[in-house]
């Protein structure tokens, strides 16, 4: 009862904030009436901003109308510079999932190795420490030069940026499995392979999934920047293209859509995290 009423009240506050923000936005960008008298021919050249005092920023209603038009037709394709936002998103999500999946394939086994072997942990530590803080976009020229394909290069950049949190968390999770659980496996003469899958993996899973959740967040941040850089397709390219078109409505729409997709990706991983967590 208290729980629902709290949720309801929070919802009301959220909605109020949204309305106030929308109203302020609407008032802020709407015209202030004729600014000054000028020659009608000159006024035509100057446009609404100079004549009516109207802001160049679109209002909330313009953005809503834009979103509606995108929703009506998300997957249209009218040539390389005019594709529906749905297609652009699909490109971006596809690249993220590919790069992220590849990073998983490398990070999980390698993290296991580092977590299990103090020797490998120390041997690989300097490489990880130096590579981890490098902005993934710094890899882009090298990727373009060696791979010679802009789309694969952006997948590579996603791979690189998703790698580190997963690798570090897997290694940490594996190395900090409680000694007593390992002792249980030892006294039961459980072989190394079975031990890895029945004791270490379930024990480290919450930490590993936390790393995966950080990775997917970073990957989604980086894909927008990477696509702005390489161009062609994707939501990042879409944003930059609409900026070049001076369509601020589309830029704002993309910001909202990017946020929405990022939230969905994060929530999906949160769901996985709940599934593998265990109370002690």
């Amino acid at each position, binding site marked *: 009862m208290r729980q629902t009423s709290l949720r309801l009240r929070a919802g009301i506050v959220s909605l109020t904030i949204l309305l106030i923000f929308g109203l302020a936005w609407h008032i802020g960008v709407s015209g202030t009436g004729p600014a000054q008298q000028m020659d009608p021919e000159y006024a035509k050249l100057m446009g609404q901003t100079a004549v009516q005092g109207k802001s160049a920023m679109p209002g909330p209603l313009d953005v809503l109308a834009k979103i509606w038009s995108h929703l009506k037709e998300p997957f249209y394709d009218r040539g390389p510079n005019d594709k529906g936002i749905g297609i652009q998103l699909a490109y971006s999500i596809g690249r993220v999932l590919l790069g992220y999946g590849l990073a998983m394939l490398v990070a999980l086994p390698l993290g296991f190795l580092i977590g299990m072997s103090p020797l490998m942990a120390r041997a690989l530590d300097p490489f990880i420490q130096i590579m981890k803080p490098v902005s993934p976009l710094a890899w882009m020229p090298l990727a373009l030069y060696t791979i010679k394909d802009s789309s694969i290069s952006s997948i590579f950049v996603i791979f690189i940026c998703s790698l580190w949190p997963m690798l570090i968390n897997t290694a940490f999770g594996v190395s900090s499995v409680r000694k007593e659980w390992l002792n*249980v496996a*030892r*006294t*039961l003469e459980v072989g190394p392979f079975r031990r890895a899958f029945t004791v270490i993996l*379930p*024990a480290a899973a919450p930490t590993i999934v936390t790393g995966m959740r950080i990775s997917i967040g970073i990957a989604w941040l980086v894909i927008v920047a990477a696509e702005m850089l390489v161009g062609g397709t994707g939501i990042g390219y879409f944003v930059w293209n609409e900026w070049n078109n001076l369509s601020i409505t589309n830029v704002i729409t993309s910001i909202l859509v990017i946020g929405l997709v990022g939230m969905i990706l994060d929530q999906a991983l949160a769901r996985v995290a709940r599934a593998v967590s265990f109370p*002690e």
Partner: protein
Amino acid sequence: MSAKFISIEGITRRFHAPDGGTTTVFEDIWFAIARGEFVCMIGHSGCGKTTVLNILSGLDLPDDGAAIVDGKAIEGPSLDRAVIFQSHALLPWRTVLGNVAYAISSRWPRWSRSQVEEQARRFIEKVGLKGAEAKKPAQLSGGMKQRVGIARALSIEPKILLMDEPFSALDALTRGTLQDEVRRICLETGQTVFMITHDVDEAIYLADKIVLMTNGPEAMVAEIVENPLPKERDRNQIHRHPAFYAIRNHLIDFLVSRSKTFKSEIPADYDRRKPPVIVPQNQPQPLPPSHEAGRKVA
């Protein structure tokens, strides 16, 4: 042979500090356990009790000497020796049934799923947890968790049961019931048990023999106390037995004073390989304060 089912022969364990120094936890320890015997080890913290148990379980190895079971030196963990951990050490992501079944399928990898489950259910019932099979350890009380630990250890039908202060984290009431049940199960099956405790009454109630360790470091076995109480014991009547206070006072005297002073006043005829065996007997009041309370038999 059966008199020395387990034989601890001159084991020493040293730990190396990071600054290069070494601490000898215990040195040159000798004692033996017969088949079907229930042996408790008592001593203060830091005397290496748990290390002795870890060596018996195979989780740790001695720096010198050997622990021999059934004629073979222990070289690593074995399913013949089940351990009940102080912290129960259940796998929290598995259910009660899953925890016990994990041990059983490790013991008999060829068993079918239904065979494993049947064995698991049998032992879960034996420790009085019928109905809780599908629960996760986090949903259980401390006593119930330790019951699962006991079921897991017994379900693999080990030759030796090793217990590291299994009841010390439980409240008095739960401890009592669990002691009763462990005692009943071990008597029924003729289980050989080695248990570590710091609870004198627990040792008197459960043990056939009690190994007394002096304080660490460089701990040693001071003596082995044979329990004068009959094998058939009733928790509520035990204190009426004429020898009860003799053994109780003897053990408490040891823990309070002699565990500290023993090393400085080692008896002339003390032999590390054959620590003196004492059977405390009823003494006329008032009780003498020291080890004269015991009659030497070895």
